[in-house]
């Protein structure tokens, strides 16, 4: 086994990640402005920004979903129990003892098992909840005149708000994780350059050097 710098985040993934980050932060700030928790902008500015960001984010998600399934990258998000216990044990115990992080990025598996489960939960629970409730909310004018619509608007709004809180909690943990171990910048760098240290088998290394030399340095 040898550790090499390998391109594991393609241009599209980095574009996806940073655009998504910008849009989600915008939506959190504008969403909580609409909710009345901050007063950094007027209500109509908040609604306009929130709506436009939502449409942009939905478009991005359509692109990303298409990309995930056509490139096979969806496999990175498959949950696995193997090694999960070790990672959980590390964050809850080992880290305090100064132990090494038990996970090594592999070429075919760039997230640790805890990360994979967290991202999967985000993708199949929180994101669908927020965009489904958001679209229903946005289209209130279409169904608002149906009988009993008013109490349903409240329910939709509550789901939307509750999910937003959960996503904000995810963002906090996600950013916090970047501060553990190496420096924050060291952790962020791979999502900028695309290259990260990956444990390669001799066969993988040989393959990359021979067939995809631009992905290894």
């Amino acid at each position, binding site marked *: 086994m040898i550790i090499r710098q390998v391109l594991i985040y393609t241009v599209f993934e980095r574009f996806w990640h940073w655009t998504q980050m910008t849009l989600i932060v915008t939506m959190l700030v504008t969403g909580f402005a*609409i*909710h*009345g928790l901050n007063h950094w902008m*007027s*209500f*109509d500015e908040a*609604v*306009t920004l929130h*709506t*436009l960001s939502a449409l942009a984010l939905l478009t991005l998600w359509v692109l990303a979903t298409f990309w995930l399934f056509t490139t096979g990258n969806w496999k990175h998000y498959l949950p696995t129990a193997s090694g999960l216990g070790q990672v959980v044990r*590390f*964050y809850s115990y080992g*880290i*305090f*003892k*100064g*132990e*090494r*992080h038990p*996970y090594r*990025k592999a070429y075919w598996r*760039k*997230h*640790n098992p805890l*990360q994979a489960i967290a991202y999967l939960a985000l993708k199949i629970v929180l994101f669908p909840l927020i965009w489904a409730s958001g679209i229903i909310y946005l289209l*209130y*004018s279409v169904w*608002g*005149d149906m*009988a*009993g619509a*008013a*109490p349903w*608007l*409240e329910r939709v*709004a*509550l789901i939307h*708000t*509750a999910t*937003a*809180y*959960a996503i*904000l*909690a995810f963002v*906090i*943990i*996600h950013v*916090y*994780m*970047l*501060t*553990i*171990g*190496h420096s924050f910048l060291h*952790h962020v760098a791979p999502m900028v350059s695309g290259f*990260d*240290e990956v444990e390669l088998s001799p066969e993988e290394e040989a393959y990359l050097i021979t067939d995809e030399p631009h992905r290894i340095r």
Partner: protein
Amino acid sequence: MRVLPGALLAVTLMPLTVTQARSNWPTPPIAGDAATQVSGPLTGGSADHSKFAALKGPFATGPEVTKACLGCHTESGRHFMKNIHWTWDFTDPETGQRLGKKHLINNFCTNARGNEGMCAQCHAGYGWKDETFDFTNQDNIDCLVCHDHTGTYYKTTNSNGDKSCAVMFEGLPALDLAQIAQSVQLPERANCGTCHFNGGGGDNVKHGDLSSALKDPPRSLDVHMSSDGQNFACTACHVTKNHVWAGSRYAVIAKDTAGPGRPGQRRDVATCESCHGAAPHPAASVRHLKLNDHVASVACQTCHIPRFARGGIATVMDWDWRTAGQTKDGEGYHEHGYTQGNGEERYTYKSIKGSFTYGENVIPDYGWFNGQMRYTTIDTQVDLSDQPIPINSYLGARADGRSRIWPFKRMLTWQPVDAGNGTLVYTHLWGEDTDAYWGNYDMGKAIARGMQDFGLAYSGHFDFLQTVSYWPITHMVAPKEDALACGDCHMENGRLSTVTGVYLPGRDRNRWVDLAGLILIFGTLGGTLAHGLGHRVIRFKNRGNTHDHAGKNHS
């Protein structure tokens, strides 16, 4: 040389022209049973009334002028007699309630009925002073009050009232009825305003959104009526057909989904939508799309008339009849005490009416309104313990699909009621007799007479109780830059803080969801902080015990 081609052309076309002329000219006669064709809106100006021999005069009385008018406008009398300005009578088609000034109690001067000698100055007719008035005589119609264009026309009371009231019309110049008759025009704002700006007994007293400031308003007061805007007369919106015009406070169209009429259509509504359509904001932005969504549930007036009683003329918000009847040396008197925006003094006390509280630039009340008003009529039994007693109340709810959020002026008054029978009362204010309040200042006698004249039961015991009436706000439309911002309603304690039945983002929240959310966020922040500090502190203490600091994680 120039003539030749023209002549050739004429010769070539001649057979065609002759054929056309035979079939289209002269205009073929309309078959006797053909339905009347629909014309566009009339703008007047086709006749100069100073050239009509019939209007040369001299005229001694108003009815003589009317007779001359009807000599040419043969059907206008018949048409106008259907108009509420003539009938003062309206039967609500849904509730069956008998409404109109002829019947209703209000919470200003309380009732026109029995006081027509005074109040019917604003009846579009001549001489209504009691029950004997002839509503079938077309000569009794007053054409001039609406059509005068000299600005010199005025009316006096139809009966004299108490001798002390004679001072009211002293020293008025004589009317030149011939000159007025020759200058008639389509009604302008000042014509309608003669009565409608002075409802309730003074400038803007009643409505709050109809004041003499609208005679020549700046654009900031009313975009449609300003000469810097469209310079609309009232009839530009209150469209007219056969001398009956659209727009009624008794039958309000609270939600007009039909939108604008094409030429020849819709002479029956005065709604904003009848010109601006049902999607009035140009749909080029997210903001405007969202605003157009609001048309379904928020009346245009709610955002576009941010305050009423603008333009420097105050409206009466509270009226207290309990203080009426005080005299100095046996004489009635009045007190100034309020200087309104245009610098004029307003009475805050009058012996004949009591005390007034004024408001200017007033934020309206808001509520769901489906167009239906319910009135407390003279024969309605009311619960006197449930104050304020509604003189009228508006109906509507989010759930009925017909309502929108409307702005209202809320008028509060302490006024006399029959404490024994639990009804409102007619008060006999005006008369030459000794029972009239405006003369004797005896409320008990005035009520007894007011009820007796119409065969109504009166217990003999009156009390002053608080009443409330609601006036939909629909005039004084501000320029768009002055319209309410979204955040004026979408906030806690905002404009719509009392409106129920709808989840309003920015105003409404579920406190449990917010509490759980905030606990989650601060718990997460606290947890990560503790985790981050914890492992750093422990490792700092244990430094030297371990050399493995290269722990790499992939978060």
